[in-house]
Structures are given as C-alpha cells and as structure tokens.
C-alpha cells in the first residue's frame, strides 16, 4: 500500500466513524433545553461561584441546561451592544446601573412589573435609590434589583492617626486630610483619586457634583446648562487636588479601574474611593493592613450626601424563548435563602436593595460593613435630580465628566473653557439621543 493510499484510508475511516457517531443508532440522549444567562464576573470569586452554583441547582431541578457566560466591568456594554446588533441576546442577564434605561427604549427588555412586586412581597420593600434604576418613568419595571456594589472611602487609620487627621465627613475635609498627611511627611501622595475612564473616575465625580447640588438635567430629565458656580466649585475641587495640593500620585490620571486598588493594597496611598473589593482582598488574604483599614461612607457636600450608584439588576430579554423559565430563575436566585447565601459569600461586596435582606445580622460584623450597608441610601442615578434616561447614561458612558477634569489637569485649560466644552457635549447628547 502506497503512502497516499494509506493516508486516504485513514481519512476515509475517520469520516465513516464521524458519520456513525451521527447516526440514530449511536445518537446521544435528547439534549435538555438550554437557558442562556449572562453574569458580571466581579472581583470576588467566591461570590461568582456562589451565584453560578445557585443557578446550576435551579437548572437541575427544572431539567434545563444553563449556559452561563461572563462579562467584566470593562466589557459589559460591549457584549450587550454586539448581542443587540446580532440578535444574540441571552434569556436572562445582569445589567449595570445605566443598562435598563438604555435598553428598554430599544424594546429589548420584558416588562417585569409582576416579578418586581412578587420580590417585594418576599424580601420587603426596595430602597428608594433602586427605583430610578429599575423602574421606568411610566411606573413599569423592566429590571429587578440584584445587589448594589457600593462605593465607599477606604481609610488607612494608622496613617491618619500618625498625621493627626480625622476621617473626612465632607469633601473639604478630604482635601484637608490629604494636605495634612502630606505636610506631616507621613506620605507624599496620600489621596488615590483618578478622574479616569472608569467608574472610579466618573462615579466619584458624580458623588462630588451631586453633593454640591450640581447636575446637568432638571427634574423632568431635560438638559440644563452647567455654566454655573456649583460646577465651577466642583471642577476647582477636582483639579486642585492635583494642581495645587499635589496630594494625588502623579500618574493617577492614567490609572485603569484597578489602579487605586493596587495603590491602596500596596500601601502607596492613605485613602481612596472604591467598591469593597479592596476589603475582600485584605480579609481573604489576611493582609497586615486589614486592622488599619476602615470603610466609611463617602463625604457630604454643601447640598448633603448625594452619591453615585452601581446597582446590578436582573432582566429578561424580549427575544427570549424561555420567558417563564427566565423569570423563575430570577425568582429562585432572589428568594430569601438563596439571596442570603450569595450575600454571605460576597465578603461585603454585594449589598441588597430589599429591606428584609438588609436586616440580616451579617451586616453588623463591624463598622466597615455597616458603612457599606448604609451607603446605598445616598445613591443617586446619572442625570439626578431628573430620571435616569438614555441621554444621562450617555453623558456618563462617554466620559464627559472626567474629560472635563482632564482638560484642566492635563491640558492646562482654564475651568471656564473646559466647562464650555463639556456643556456643549452634554447639550449635543441630549439633542441627539434617539427617542424613537
């Protein structure tokens, strides 16, 4: 047999085998119906595993095959945008804060009002701050709350003590504490605040802005000019920590979402604003600085405590062929027992929006956990004091707020010129977001 003939025989045999595998006699048992679920991969693997386990247990009981896919904070919008344009949306998915407002207008989300009411009956009322995220202005729910990932102050109490600084309760005290720590020679760059293209930038800017009573929309959700003294004061605060106080690490403006986590965990800064994922690493790895780390609610401004919000929600997409199963899955993972199991695996990262879950003794572990639990009460959605609209979402998503700071800090523009550019961008967004 020649080499060629031998090769052809092998290929033929392989093809016959493949054909046999596909024949009815050798066919696999009928496959279970699939249900596609998209989840956020958080920085806390234990929490991710707990939720996945919960979904798998539910699927087994329903004789379904769950297809679980993950996105990260960085590619959540990318994945959904691609899926919308290719008609490849999952049955069930988690959305970030701006998701429901953006996608319900496209007709991609099912009405989940009944399910929302059911969850309220089971777990108690939702926090007021969750409603603008999951409830449309017409009163219908196209998403139901999953959990908040709250942003808090991370304080190195030992360094604060050494400098004689107190835990800031106002934004002015943040600057004072940073200046004091620097002046006392405790740390050259104590404040880890970046105005970058991540939630650590635009989230904190919103907290600063809303606490000063500023906004870019009125109560009806229409654009209002930002050329006013409140905005000037806010941008001055944001830029002077870099340009005047020089209390922020010199390359902080180029940090990615993990930059401040890294700086805090390695002891390079004395305080920053972040979700509890930093605390998770400290607790899980029993880092020595855990005993000197405090999580505290973000500061207040002249207009009180009005902060940004990261609320994850569940939704069912209108393209789903398994609507009842999809709703049942959400009902199961949000049942009191399952929600508590998940909450306790999240190391304080996932804060419930439902009152009965919030009363769990788990949150009384220490002062830091109590702060994390309380923080969502002050959460305000993009576009506050107006409703969360697609236009408000786009202002945040296109980094108008942090580009404004960067114009002053990086490009050396004066505040007035930078505000004019940002104002024009916001006006343009509100004029052009489709309302079809």
């Amino acid at each position, binding site marked *: 047999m020649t080499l060629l003939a031998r090769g052809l025989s092998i290929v033929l045999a392989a093809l016959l085998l493949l054909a046999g595998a596909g024949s009815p006699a050798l066919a696999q048992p009928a496959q279970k119906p699939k249900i596609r679920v998209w989840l956020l991969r958080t920085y806390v693997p234990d929490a991710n595993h707990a939720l996945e386990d919960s979904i798998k247990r539910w699927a087994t009981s329903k004789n379904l095959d769950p297809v679980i896919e993950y996105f990260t904070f960085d590619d959540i*919008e990318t994945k959904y945008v691609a899926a919308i344009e290719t008609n490849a949306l999952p049955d069930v998915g988690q959305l970030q804060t701006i998701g429901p407002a953006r996608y319900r207008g496209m007709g991609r989300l099912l009405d989940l009002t009944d399910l929302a009411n059911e969850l309220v009956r089971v777990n108690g009322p939702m926090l007021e701050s969750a409603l603008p995220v999951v409830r449309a202005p017409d009163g219908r729910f196209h998403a139901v709350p999953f959990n908040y990932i709250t942003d808090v102050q991370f304080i190195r109490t030992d360094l604060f003590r050494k400098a004689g600084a107190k835990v800031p309760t106002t934004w002015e005290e943040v600057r004072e504490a940073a200046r004091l720590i620097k002046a006392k020679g405790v740390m050259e760059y104590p404040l880890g605040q970046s105005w970058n293209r991540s939630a650590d930038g635009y989230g904190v800017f919103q907290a600063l802005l809303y606490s000063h009573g500023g906004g870019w929309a009125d109560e009806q959700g229409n654009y209002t000019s930002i050329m006013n003294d409140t905005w000037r004061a806010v941008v001055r605060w944001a830029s002077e920590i870099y340009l005047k106080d020089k209390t922020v690490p*010199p*390359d902080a403006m180029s940090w990615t979402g993990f930059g401040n986590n890294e700086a805090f965990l390695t002891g390079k800064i004395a305080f920053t604003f972040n979700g509890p994922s930093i605390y998770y690493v400290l607790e899980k790895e029993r880092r020595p600085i855990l005993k000197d780390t405090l999580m505290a609610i973000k500061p207040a401004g002249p207009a009180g405590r009005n902060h940004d919000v990261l609320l994850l929600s569940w939704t069912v997409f209108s393209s789903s062929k398994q609507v009842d199963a999809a709703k049942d899955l959400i009902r199961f993972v949000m049942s009191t027992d399952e929600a508590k199991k998940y909450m306790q695996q999240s190391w304080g990262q996932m804060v419930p929006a439902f009152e009965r879950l919030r009363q769990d003794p788990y949150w009384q572990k220490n002062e830091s956990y109590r702060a994390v639990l309380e923080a969502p009460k002050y959460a305000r959605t993009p576009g506050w004091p107006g409703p969360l609209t697609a236009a408000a979402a786009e202002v945040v998503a296109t*980094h108008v707020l942090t580009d404004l700071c960067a114009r002053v800090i990086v490009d050396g523009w004066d505040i007035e010129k930078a505000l004019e550019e940002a104002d024009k961008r916001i006006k343009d967004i509100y004029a052009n977001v489709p309302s*079809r």
Partner: protein
Amino acid sequence: MTKPSAWRRVLVADALVGYLFVLPLIVLVLGLVAYPLGNAVWISLTDKYVGYAARFVGLGNYVTLTRDPIFHKVIRNSAVFTLASVAVKVVLGMLMALALQRALVARSFLRAALLVPWVIPTVITALTWHWMFNALWGFINVTLQGVGLVREPIAWLGQPATAMAAVITANIWRGFPFFGVCLLAGMQAIPRDLYEAAAVDGASPAQRFWHITLPGLRLVLLVTTLISLIFTLNDFNIVYVLTRGGPGTATHVLATYTYEVGFQALRWGKAVAVSMYPLPVIAVMIVIVTRYLTRED
C-alpha cells in the same frame, strides 16, 4: 462561414470555463471585502444608533466630526503615534537585520530571541509596559530613583507627552522584530558577489550598505513599511490597555475613539465614520505601492 462559428464556440466555452474558475474568487472578494466595506460606508452615512433602525443622513457624521475637538485631537494623536512608531521601527528593524546577518555565533538563538516581542500576545506586552511605567512602583522609576538619576517619580503615563512616548515605546518594542525579520529575508536575497566585488573595489561598509543593501531592500522596505503603517494606525490593544486613551484624551487614537463612540456612546454611524476617515490615506498608500511594484515587474 462555418470556421468562425466553430472558433466562436470554442472561445465562448473557454470564456465560460475561465469565468467558472474566477467565480470563487469573485464570490470571496464580494463577500469578504466589497460587502463589509460597502455596508460600513452605508452605516457611516446614517444616524445608526445601537438597537434602532438606521436613517440616512448623508455626510452628516463626517461633517459633525470636522467640528469635534476630540476628533481633531484623535487625528493628531494617531498621526504622531503611527509615524513616530513606524519610523523608529524601521531603524531598529534595520539594525536588528544587519546584526543578525553578521552574527557569527548563536545566530539561531539570537533570531529566536529577537522575535520574542513580536510573538508575545499584545495584551501581555501592554500590561508589562504598564507595570514598568508605573510612577510609584514601576521598574523604570524605581531604577532611576535607585541610581539617583531622579528624585521625584516621573508620571510616565500621567502627562500627555510622556504618555504618548510610552505608548509609542511599547508599540515599537512589539513591532520592530517584524521589520527585522522581513529585512533580514530581503538581505539574504541580495547576491553575495555584489558585496565581494564592492569590497575588491575598496568600498567601505557604509558605502556597501548605502549602494548595495539599501537599494536591494527597497521593495521589502516599502511593503513592510506600508503594512506596518496600516497595522499601527489601526492599533487598539496597546493604547487601550496602557492608557485607555488618557490621561484625558492625550493618547486617544482612531481605534480607541471608534470603540468609545460605537460601544459606549452607541452611535454606530458616527463610529464607522471615524474609522472611515483614514481610508483615503490608506488607499493612496496602497495605490502608490501597487504602481511601484507593477513598474518594477
């Protein structure tokens, strides 16, 4: 009278067979090049917003971009990033090729070692450089401060000029082996007797390089540079991982801006228009090279 019609029958049959052979290629070109390109042009002429139907707006997106100050900066950044990167890559690639051609020992090892930057996944390259450029604990600042060359940490990624230099450096590090390998292959195709004759005539190494090597590499250099210009102009990973286009918009380039407008602002019409802007420049480059190659043939 019967002879021409017989010929015609043969010719027609030949032509049909010819078309049949060319058909797969036509289908491929139409399906993989013409349709996506035509579709992209069409989308750029609409107000396509993710999740909504597209409406024709003519050149509206292109006109809007001419008034967009961020887009102006993106164009400037892209030009600086691309031209500076490619220029240095050409020089380093040439040096690499010359060194490898003359290496007397461990030639295979050196070739493999110098190819490493090119075969490492871009994300790993970018993350490594990100760590090296970190102001507080990055390798570069720690070293500079350690040997006493600087007292204060330099914010490599935190200032516009140094951030641009940083992304260019990372891009050069990753891309110069491509030039090195191509130019080395080109050098090996130059007949050795040309060098020997030049040496007998008393030509210095510099003269041999200038009058033999460089003219011999002209085509390789042109094609490699063109390909690298196109790749670098479209580079996304290095800028996105290193700086996200920041600080502010200091390193925002066409690819990162297209991503931001398309996937974060959801404005696909405008995003595609952003990515279409350099197309005429690229088309001109392709035409020039094609003509040049044809003339050489």
